[in-house]
């Protein structure tokens, strides 16, 4: 289960943003440990973990929207000194996507799930899941220009 840690972290970073990602990650794996004995032996563990992460992310987003007025991090806040250097432009671009598109992009392009699984997680049709991911990626290509020839290395 733990070898999916990297994937789940990428997914929650995309879905809830860096600030809440660590909590979403921890809550996902704690919930998974609790529920693990009931998981059928032939289940797709990664899809199952992403499903849990999806629900935890919804909880966190709901709680966050009830919190006080959101303010941007001041330039010298500790949040900007995280261990991971991350591209704030990408965060902003992903964060600006409508939730369904952001989720579909994360579950397909970061977790590698097939649209049949994503449709179950998003409670939508396979066609709608595929469309949400395609629309999200199309927007990202505009708002966060990833290199056009599929070579993304020069961005890192």
């Amino acid at each position, binding site marked *: *289960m*733990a070898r999916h*840690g*990297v994937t789940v*972290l*990428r997914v929650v*970073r*995309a879905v809830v943003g860096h600030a809440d990602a*660590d909590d979403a*990650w*921890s809550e996902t*794996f*704690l919930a998974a*440990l*609790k529920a*693990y*004995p009931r*998981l059928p*032996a032939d289940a797709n563990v990664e899809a199952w973990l992403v499903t849990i992460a999806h629900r935890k992310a919804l909880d966190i987003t709901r709680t966050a929207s009830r919190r006080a007025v959101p303010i941007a991090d001041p330039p010298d806040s500790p949040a900007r000194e*995280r*261990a*991971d*250097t*991350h*591209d704030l432009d*990408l965060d902003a671009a992903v964060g600006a996507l409508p939730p369904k598109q952001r989720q579909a*992009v994360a579950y397909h*392009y*970061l977790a590698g799930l097939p649209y049949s699984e994503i449709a179950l997680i998003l409670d939508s049709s396979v066609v709608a899941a595929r469309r949400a991911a395609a629309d999200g*990626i199309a927007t990202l290509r505009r708002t966060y220009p*990833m290199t*056009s*020839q*599929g070579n*993304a*290395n020069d*961005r*890192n």
Partner: protein
Amino acid sequence: MTAINLTEHFPVDPDHLKRLHARLERAAQSGDLLDIAYRTVDSAVGPLLLAATPLGLLRVAFANEGHDSVLQNLSARISPRILEAPTRLDPVARQLEEFFTGRRHSFEVALDWSLSQGFRRTVLEHLNTDIGYGTTTSYAALAGLSGSPKAVRAVGTACATNPIPIVVPCHRVIRSDGTVGAYRGGPAAKRVLLDLERH
């Protein structure tokens, strides 16, 4: 449309993930959700997988056993609540290091015998208490110690399936003709352990 590798745009710092795992380990432990903790250590006989329950050391596995398949087997037989959680294994990891540098001749760790039943367990418990560092015994002698002098083949099986090798010293059981015989970690690993204890 060109293929997109979005994961490259989401780099994950291994140290950050390690800290998250440590936090999860503590939370799981206090929530009674960590049935099996595991880690790997390097040794003179290659990387070893160590797995422990709250009762004690459950499994030591050599690389040739395939650590992934060993973990899958533990998940099916004992509990799927398995986490890479080094803290629980710190004492045995330290003692193994001392053992491999010749500074330790016996292990002081609690053992979880859940993977051994019946006669096999009897054999391994005798092996654990009766055959000291630097000595060897034969399968026939161990059969006698275990109360079934004729069960030499069964003793061989018990040793070959020892779930806690090195700590429970099945490497000290050799063939009556003096050759080292089979070993879960391969005959070369057995040779290394016997040579280590001769110095």
